[in-house]
């Protein structure tokens, strides 16, 4: 499961066991669903797949994905089971990790201390695969990025427990539009530095 959150802030996220139909109707969740659906559009129904031209069914794919998004949001907003799985977390420490080595039963990652507002990798972690989901193990590659949060999780019934969550992040594919923009910048840079 993906989540979106800011450093140092309390956030709400879907638990790994949760059915998406029983998630609290709070703003971050809406953001999560929107970004998840947009990722879905990007990754599963690519409108601009790398250097290829737009597929003919672009509009249909986009429409279907948006309908799916709206349906999921409306389901959440009206769910009667909202409170059964809601959880909030107060983060004590957050790192952004980048996978730099993958071994048989563990991986190695460089960590940026997000809580300390560092912008460089200042430590290294050796993480056994048992600390992350099988799904994340299967799709992990060098340079995969994750968030690691250690904090307190508070359930709706008031139970408070210390948790450590590692959440891998998906990035949208590089699109033709991204590359075209990159080429524009390249042309401008190259004409500036090679003007003589």
């Amino acid at each position, binding site marked *: 499961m993906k989540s979106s959150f800011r450093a140092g802030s309390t956030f709400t996220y879907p638990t790994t066991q949760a059915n998406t139909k029983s998630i609290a109707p709070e703003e971050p969740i809406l953001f999560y669903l929107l970004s998840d659906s947009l990722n879905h559009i990007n990754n599963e129904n690519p409108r601009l797949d790398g*250097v290829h031209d737009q597929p003919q069914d672009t509009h249909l794919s986009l429409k279907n994905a948006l309908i799916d998004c709206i349906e999921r949001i409306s389901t959440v907003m009206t769910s009667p089971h909202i409170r059964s799985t809601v959880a909030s977390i107060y983060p004590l420490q957050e790192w952004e990790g980048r996978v730099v080595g993958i*071994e048989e039963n563990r991986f190695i990652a460089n960590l940026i201390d997000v809580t300390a507002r560092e912008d460089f990798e200042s430590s290294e*972690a050796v993480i056994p695969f048992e600390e992350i989901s099988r799904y994340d193990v299967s799709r992990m590659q060098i340079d*995969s*990025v994750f968030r690691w949060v250690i904090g307190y999780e508070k359930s709706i019934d008031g139970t408070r427990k210390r948790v450590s969550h590692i959440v891998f992040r998906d990035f949208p594919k*590089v699109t033709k539009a991204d590359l075209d923009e990159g080429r524009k910048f390249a042309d401008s840079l190259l004409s500036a*530095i090679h003007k003589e």
Partner: protein
Amino acid sequence: MTDYDQAPAATEIEFSLLGSGTGESALIHLGHGDWLVIDSFLDDHGTPVALRYLNDLRINAADSVKLCTVTHWHADHIRGFSKLLSTCRNADFCCSAVTTYREFVAIVTALRGDRGGSASPVVRELQGCYSVLNSTKKSPVYAMSQRLVFQNSTSKVWALSPSDEVLQRSMLSLFSAIEAQSRTETLRGVPPNETAIVLWIEFERCSILLGSDLERRGWVTILNSPMPFASRASAFKIPHHGAASADLPDVWNQLVEPNCCCAITPWRLGGNTLPSKTDIDRLSSRTDKLWITSNQSDDVPLLQHRNTNVQRALQESAIQVRPGIPRLDMVRLRRKLNEYGDWGVETYGSACRATEYAI
């Protein structure tokens, strides 16, 4: 033995190699206050180590550094390079031509971090370098086989690689790189070690060979090319952390003096280490004068977190977190510009002779 923070005299050559297992950076004093910086990594405060060292010597990097070279774009060689480049305003930027190929710039630009994640350190540094170039409008100095990339009254700096063939192959592989861009914000397609820049620094009475991470195939090309100089190197930065994949006997036979003064940086990732015991044995059979910049093996203590609750969570988990290594580990070689003789070798931090290296 001089004090650590004593700058070299105007008539003194210095070759300092810094490396603590997570990065490599070299500084050369070319004489008369001109410095060359090759590659970069960060200290525990996020400062490029070369800037920290020059600052310790009370040398103004903005004026004194004349050439900043990034030999290739592996993370252990490029972290902090954009900051180095923006600080050293008087320096030219020396890089492989691949770095400013239109398609390469386009890919690096397309991998921007604001699409939902942060770009990799390599991409960030390249973007930072482009930003500096865009503001200074200065053309980079492109390193390629047998090209003179810098000279002053006492020295000439030659690039020995990459070759034309590698540059052409890199250009072709960029097209497949575009196809390979996926969900990670990383750069794929062109193996950086193949395009690594090897530098030859020629003085009147000695030469230095800086091997970067170039591997065997690249060295074969160098050895098969006519050399623009007749001397052999008396100091050698051993390529690719001493790995066997970068070691070629003919380099020792043709390019460096017998029993040449050699320095090496280690590389560590998790429990993996270069050079290995076998590498040290092999290299020690080639020279008695072999130093390594860092001797901190796996005994780096686990992170002690400032928050006791986080510390408890770390202790209860099977995850091991180790902090970055704060010390400035360095091998420093100095000699007079106009004298023959051996290099004076000094070690700082945990640097040591290879025979004392604990693997």
